[in-house]
C-alpha cells in the first residue's frame, strides 16, 4: 500500500478531474443532439411554434391546433401523431433554437409560416358536415397543378393531452386502403380500352348472375337482371356480371402493366413528406372468381383514395395527372422570403387515347344515371362512379369517385358503415362542388 501512495493520489486526482470534466462533456453531447429536436418537442416545451395556414390564410396551427376536429390528423396538434405536417416540417418551422438560452430564446419567436394548399377551414367544415356524423374520408385535388384541396378524415377529434376518439389520429386518406366496390369498374374499363379500344362495344346480356369457369358465381346487386349492355351502360348501371365478363376479355399481362402504370403495387409512397399507403389488387388470371371479383370491386382489391383520385384526374386530362402536394410554401413572415416552394410534377398515368375514350363514356354514363334521385349529383360534377364495398363483417362502405372538369378537380370519397344506396357520398361531393364554386 505504501509504495502505491503516489499512484493512489494520482488516481484520485484523475477521478476528480473526470468528474469536473464530465460536465462540459455532457454539455457537448447535449449540444450535438440539438438537431433532433422536433416541433413536437418544442411545442411540448414552449407551446409556441411557427404557423400552418390554409391556402387563403386561415390559421390551422400556431402551437394550438385550430379546427382539429376537422384537420387535426393532417395538420397536427400539440399531442401529435408522427405522420402530420406539423411534425414532418418541424425543423423548417423553428430553425433558430438557441442552445444557450433554451426555451427562453423562443419566447419572442414567431416562427415561419407554412402555407398549405387546403381550402379554407369554413369550406372544409361544410364538407365535413355533409358526412352527417358518419366516419369516412374525402380527398380532392387539382389534377393539373397537384394542389390538394381537401384531405378530410373523420373523425378527427384530437385532444391536446393525447387522447382522441378511436381512429381519429390517423388520416384515412394517407394510411387507409379500402375495398373499392364498383368504383373499380372505372379502372377495369380503362384497362380494357387501353388493351383494345374496340372493347367499348363489348356487349353482354346480364341475367342477374353469372357462372364463372371455376364454378363460382358473380351476382349483380339484388340479382337484378340488367339485360343487354355495352360498356357505357354497364358503367352507369354498375353491372357486376358485365364487368366480370369484360375482365375475362383482358390480357392478364397487359392489364397488370396498365394497373402498374396507374399506381397499383407501388411501395414507399409519400405525399410531400407524409407517408401514405398505396393501392393493390390481384388480377392473376381471367378465369378464377378471386381475380375477376377483384376487377369488379371486391376480392383482393384495396385502394387508396389518393391513387384513385389521381386516376380520375388522369382520365379527365388525357392520361396525365399531377402528383398531389399539400405544402405550398414555407416563408419568413418578416420579409416574405421563401425557404421552401412546391414544385408540381405531372406524370402520364394512362394512354391518351384510352383516357379520352374513357372520359367520353364516363361523362355520358354519369349524365344518364347520376343526375336524378336522392343521390343526384351537382351539374358541376362532370363524371362520377359510386360503389358499395362489402366489408365481410356485415358492414359496408359507400364510395364515390369522380372529377369536376370546370375546377380541374378530381375526388374520391368514402363513407364507412352505411346502408346500400346511402346518399351521403353524393352529398359530400355536392358540398365539395359548392365550396369550390365560392
Amino acid at each position: 500500500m505504501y509504495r502505491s501512495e503516489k499512484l493512489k493520489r494520482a488516481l484520485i486526482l484523475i477521478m476528480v478531474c473526470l468528474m469536473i470534466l464530465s460536465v462540459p462533456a455532457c454539455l457537448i453531447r447535449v449540444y450535438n443532439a440539438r438537431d433532433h429536436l422536433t416541433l413536437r418537442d418544442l411545442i411540448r416545451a414552449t407551446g409556441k411554434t411557427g404557423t400552418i395556414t390554409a391556402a387563403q390564410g386561415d390559421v390551422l396551427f400556431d402551437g394550438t391546433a385550430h379546427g382539429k376536429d376537422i384537420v387535426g390528423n393532417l395538420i397536427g396538434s400539440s399531442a401529435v401523431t408522427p405522420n402530420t405536417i406539423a411534425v414532418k416540417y418541424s425543423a423548417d418551422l423553428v430553425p433558430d433554437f438557441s442552445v444557450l438560452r433554451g426555451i427562453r430564446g423562443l419566447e419572442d419567436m414567431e416562427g415561419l409560416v407554412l402555407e398549405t394548399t387546403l381550402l379554407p377551414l369554413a369550406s372544409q367544415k361544410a364538407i365535413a358536415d355533409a358526412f352527417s356524423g358518419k366516419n369516412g374520408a374525402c380527398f380532392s385535388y387539382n389534377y393539373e397543378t397537384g394542389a390538394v384541396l381537401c384531405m378530410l378524415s373523420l373523425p378527427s377529434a384530437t385532444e391536446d393531452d393525447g387522447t382522441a376518439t378511436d381512429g381519429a389520429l390517423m388520416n384515412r386518406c394517407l394510411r387507409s386502403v379500402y375495398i373499392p366496390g364498383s368504383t373499380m369498374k372505372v379502372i377495369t374499363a380503362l384497362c380494357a380500352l387501353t388493351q383494345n379500344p374496340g372493347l367499348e362495344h363489348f356487349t353482354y346480356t346480364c341475367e342477374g348472375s353469372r357462372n364463372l369457369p371455376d364454378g363460382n358465381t358473380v351476382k349483380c346487386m339484388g340479382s337484378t337482371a340488367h339485360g343487354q349492355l355495352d360498356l357505357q351502360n354497364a358503367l352507369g348501371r354498375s353491372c357486376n356480371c358485365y364487368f366480370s365478363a369484360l375482365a375475362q376479355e383482358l390480357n392478364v399481362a397487359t392489364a397488370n402493366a396498365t394497373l402498374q402504370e396507374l399506381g397499383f403495387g407501388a411501395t414507399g409512397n409519400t405525399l410531400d413528406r407524409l407517408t401514405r399507403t398505396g393501392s393493390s389488387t390481384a388480377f392473376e388470371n381471367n378465369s378464377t372468381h378471386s381475380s375477376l371479383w377483384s376487377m369488379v370491386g371486391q376480392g383482393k382489391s384495396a385502394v387508396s383514395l389518393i391513387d384513385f383520385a389521381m386516376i380520375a384526374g388522369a382520365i379527365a386530362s388525357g392520361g396525365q395527372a399531377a402528383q398531389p402536394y399539400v405544402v405550398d410554401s414555407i416563408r419568413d413572415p418578416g420579409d416574405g422570403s421563401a425557404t421552401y416552394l412546391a414544385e408540381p410534377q405531372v406524370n402520364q398515368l394512362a394512354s391518351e387515347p384510352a383516357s379520352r375514350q374513357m372520359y367520353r363514356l364516363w361523362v355520358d354514363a354519369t349524365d344518364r344515371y347520376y343526375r336524378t334521385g336522392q343521390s343526384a349529383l351537382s351539374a358541376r360534377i362532370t363524371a362520377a362512379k359510386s360503389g358499395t364495398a362489402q366489408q365481410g363483417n356485415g358492414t359496408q362502405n359507400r364510395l364515390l369517385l369522380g372529377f369536376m372538369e370546370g375546377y380541374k378537380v378530381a375526388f374520391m370519397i368514402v363513407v364507412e358503415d352505411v346502408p346500400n344506396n346511402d346518399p351521403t357520398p353524393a352529398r359530400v361531393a355536392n358540398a365539395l362542388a359548392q365550396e369550390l364554386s365560392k
Partner: protein
Amino acid sequence: MIPVFLKRPGVRKLLVAVLVLGFLLSLMAMVTGQARDLEPYAQRMKAYRSAMLFGMGFFLLAALYSICSGANILTFCTAVTVLYAIGVSFQILFAGYEKQLLLQAGSLVTACLVFLVWRRNRDISDAWYIALVVAALVLLMLQLFFTKELNGARLWVRIGSFSLQPGEFIKPVLVLLGAGSYRKSGRSFLYFVITLLSTAIFVLFKDLGTAVVLFCSLVLVTYLTFDSELLSLGLIGIALAAFIGVLMVSSYARTRFGNWGNVMEIPGSQQSNYIKGVLFGGFSGLGLPHAHIMTGTDRFVSTDASLAAVLGVYGTPMLLLTMLCYGLLILQAAHNRSVFPANHLVLCQVGVMIFINTMLNLCGSLDLLPFTGVTAPLISYGGSSALSFGAMLGLQAAALNPAIHPPKRRHLCTAAKN
C-alpha cells in the same frame, strides 16, 4: 505556506462563524427560491443565482479553511450539506416529499449513528467482521429469493408497505469488510469471495450499475491490500471476459449497449427525453416552474437521471457545484492523514463508489456512457440509497475524525516504516 494569522484561534473562530453564516444564508436563499416559485411574477432566476453564489462562496471559504487549517472534517460537512440541500429541494419537486424528507433526514441520522459507533475504531474486530459477513450473506439471500421483478430487473424486496434494495445496503457492508481485510489472509479471502459473488448476482439480476460499483471496489481493495498489480490486472481481465460473455448471451445487455450513442435515433426513449430537457433548459436551466418539461411523468428522472435533471432544471452552474462537492468528498481520500489501514481503505472505497455512482448517473442518463441506472449520492430519490450513502458518509466522517489521529501529521509511509 499557511499565513501565520490564520493559525490564531480567534481568526479560526471568525472563519467558522463566516462558514456557518454562509451556510444558513445559502439555505435561506434556496428556500426563498422554492417559495418564490409559487408566485407567478417572482424573479426566480435571481433567487437561484443568489442561492448558487452563496453555496459556491460557502464552499470556497470552507475549502480555504480546510487547506489552511489541515482539518478537513469541516470541508467534508460543507460538501455533504450542500448536496443534501440540492437533493432535498429536488425531491420536494419530484417526489412525495414528506416521505423523502423523512428518508433524507434518516440518512443524516444514519450517518451520525455510524460516525458515533465507528469514530474511535482503528480496526475491525473479529466479532464485528463475522457480523458483517452474516449481514452480507443475509442481503444476498434477500436479493436472490425475495426480490420481485419490476421493469425488467429484480431489485426490490417488499416488506409490508416498505421496499428496500439489498443492492444498496450491501455497499457499506462490503466497504467495512474490505476495510477489515488488510493483511489478514482469511478475511481477505472471505471478502474476495463475497464481493465476487455479489457482483455476479447483481449482473444476473440486471443491476449492472451496482455490479460495476462493487467490482471496482473489489479491484481497489485487492490492489491496496495485496500490493499486487498483477492480481488487480487479472481481476480486470476476468471482468472484461465476463462482460463480453454477458453481451453475447444477454439480449438485455446488448440492447443497452446497442443504444449507447444512438439514443437520439430512438424517439421517446428516456435518455433522448433527458437530453432534450437539458437543451430546453439552456445554460441556466428550466427553473422549477418548468421542470415538468424535463420530467413529464417519468419517475426515473428522480433516481437514475437525477444529475441530468439537476443540469436541466437548475442549469450548468448548479451541476458544476454539485460535481465540485462530490469531488471534494473524493479528495478526502487523497488528503486524509489516517495512519490506520482500515480507515484508509474506507476512505478509498467510499471515494470510488461516489465516483462511479456519480459518473454513471450523469453520463449514463445523457448517453456518454451506457445507461445502467444508479442513484446519485444524497440527491436521488430512494430510501435505500439515502440510508446506504448516509452510512458510508458516516464511515468517511469517522475515518477523518481528527480525534483519532496523533497530534503530529504523519504519512502512512512514515507510520509503516516506524
